[in-house]
């Protein structure tokens, strides 16, 4: 039971299984903006064989009462099948993918490659002046790598946002 006097914030990774229909993402996003909830990251893609269901992963933060509200509000949307608070429900994996473009020459190039190797980032495109690295991992790991690339010659970053799944045999 949430305590209204507890104003401490926590992060929550929420998985939402929805009908794959037009407007469903707008409903979810509209719910967050309309009610003033935070969205730190949001991803969506169809996940079943027929393409009828999509899975949304939304990372949000708020007081315990607000997070409980967010889940209840999501759950009452008509096209929503299931809502799970992965943060609360136990061990789970969070992954994000980033494409990171770095430009430079000489020692900077060497340094970028060396760090990429240490972080297990793959080179997916290269010119004489630049690399594009592909990297998956937790958000923190991506942040760390991207921050290291900044002084070396970071050009731009494209990130997917977090996807998440519970450990073990259970499904949503």
């Amino acid at each position: 039971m949430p305590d209204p006097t507890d104003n401490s914030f926590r992060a929550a990774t929420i998985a939402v299984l929805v009908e794959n229909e037009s407007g469903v993402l707008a409903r979810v996003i509209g719910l967050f903006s309309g009610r003033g909830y935070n969205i730190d990251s949001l991803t969506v893609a169809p996940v079943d064989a027929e393409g009828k269901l999509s899975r949304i992963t939304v990372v949000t933060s708020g007081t315990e009462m607000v997070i409980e509200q967010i889940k209840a509000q999501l759950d009452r949307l008509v096209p929503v099948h299931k809502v799970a608070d992965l943060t609360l429900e136990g061990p789970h994996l969070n992954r994000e993918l980033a494409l990171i473009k770095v430009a430079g020459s000489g020692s900077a190039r060497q340094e970028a490659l060396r760090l990429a190797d240490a972080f297990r980032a793959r080179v997916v495109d290269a010119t004489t002046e630049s690399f594009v690295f592909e990297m998956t991992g937790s958000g923190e790991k991506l942040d760390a790598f991207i921050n290291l690339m900044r002084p070396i010659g970071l050009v731009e970053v494209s990130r997917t946002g977090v996807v998440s799944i519970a450990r073990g045999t259970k499904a949503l």
Partner: protein
Amino acid sequence: MSSATLPAASETQSMTGAEIVLRALKEQGVEVIFGYPGGAVLPIYDAIFNQNAIRHILVRHEQAAVHAAEGYARSTGKVGCVLVTSGPGATNAVTGLVDALLDSIPIVCLTGQVPTHLIGNDAFQEADTTGITRPATKHNYLVKQMDKLASTVHEAFYVARSGRPGPVVIDLPKDILIGKGQYTPPPSQEHRSYRPQTEPDAVQIRKAVRLLKEAKRPVVYAGGGVINAGPEASALLTKFVRMAGLPCTNTLMGLGAYPSSDPQFLGMLGMHGTVEANLAMHGCDVMFNIGARFDDRVTGRLNAFAPNSVKIHADIDPSSINKNVKVEVPIVGDAAAVLRALIAAWDADEAKQDRPSLAEWWRQIDEWRGKNCLAYVQDSKIIKPQHAVKRLYELTKESGRETFITTEVGQHQMWAAQYFGFEKPNRWMTSGGLGTMGYGLPAAMGVQVAHPDALVIDIAGEASILMNIQEMSTVAQYRLPVKVFILNNQYMGMVRQWQELLHGGRYSESYSEALPDFVKLAESFHGVGMRAESTDDLDRVIREMIAIDRPVIVDVAVDEKENVFPMIPSGAAHNEMLLAPGQIAAGAGVTDEGTALV
């Protein structure tokens, strides 16, 4: 559709989209549509023309169509049905949709749309109706495929009436309406994702019973959800409250859920609630909320709300629970199912009630009641608005007619809530959540359509009534004998009251300037107009109004300066009420913080 015009099953292949829509409406039990035509919905109007099973009521503004459907729905328990054209037709309906959303009224609103191939092209009378109404509805649909048409209409009705009811929009492109397709009956299997829980958890019910039995100072706080759950829920509430001997208060939306004449009824609670209801809430040790949503108009300052209580909250919508107020015993379920389970568990539980404490609590409540907080002094010929409502109540009761009351929004609405008694549910329609001026007349129209022989009265303010006054024309066309009872204080009284109490008496723009002559106005709309200038006229005018089987506007000149009391100012607590002058005030009054609230 009558059987003569209803295509046989073998012909369904050749039905137009518009015919499919009508057939689905018929199968969903729709008897009346409130609507207004336009280019995009002409095919539906054609189909309406060719049948006589569903009646169409032509309103004079699309907002009124939705309010009429709300009145129809709230007074019958059925889903209200609306039909409007694309673009301006749809945008005009938006206020009504939000009103229905906030008050949990089941509505299905069909909107026309430009043909699918023109969507997104800024076509004539195109509006992004599903985009605009997404936050204004419980759910909405844009039908882009013929084979989804019938199933979408069926689903819309299911969504509108299930769980927490609400408005649903179906946007219908014109090519879908004129195209040919096949009708499909309502599905027999459950909805794939939307299945609200209606049966309560037995463990929670037992916890609730034990808490209520052991309570020393219990109170039942029942709201609009009990009305939503159907008349049986109100009967069960009455049975439960009486068998347990509990005090019971209703929200504005819940009036009629518990009989107002019952000695266990404390009246309405909240901002303009009674002293006994609010102090019972403030002092209770166990609160049982059924079908109410801890609205800010009810709770006042949250950190001072029922500070020493354990709270039980039964609601069909889990998002209503723990939203504003933390509760110890959440119960998700339909109000009727919850009450049925409670009554059964009450008998099964061997614990005895703490009757001596309960008797002591009643002594305390009766003392608060003794303050007679709704007393007013009618000491001159100038009609007090409270007196006007009280006489209206007494004389309608005397007439023995089945009576339904709607209201506009403002002081008159609060006086109606305070001085008109309701013994049964579904007799009281008001705009509570959105507080929409202009609601009352169209809502009364919808009620009268559903109950042609009943006495239907819109208790109105002179400012609000002008917001949908055009509906007098609809009322005339369909010979709906709706009565408009205007408490004319020449002010936007509720605004004036706040300006008096919170803004140093600077009555900025709240005077009702250049009012029409309401008597002539009624006559120009083919109705009857009457005016009560003083207490000498009042009873006669009310009696005449009740007797006339035609639309009537009664313009009652009331005391301009009267305020609604008791009042818990925004941001104050239940034990910080302002009482009428001459009564002893019980609190701190308006704080600076409160001024920022609405």
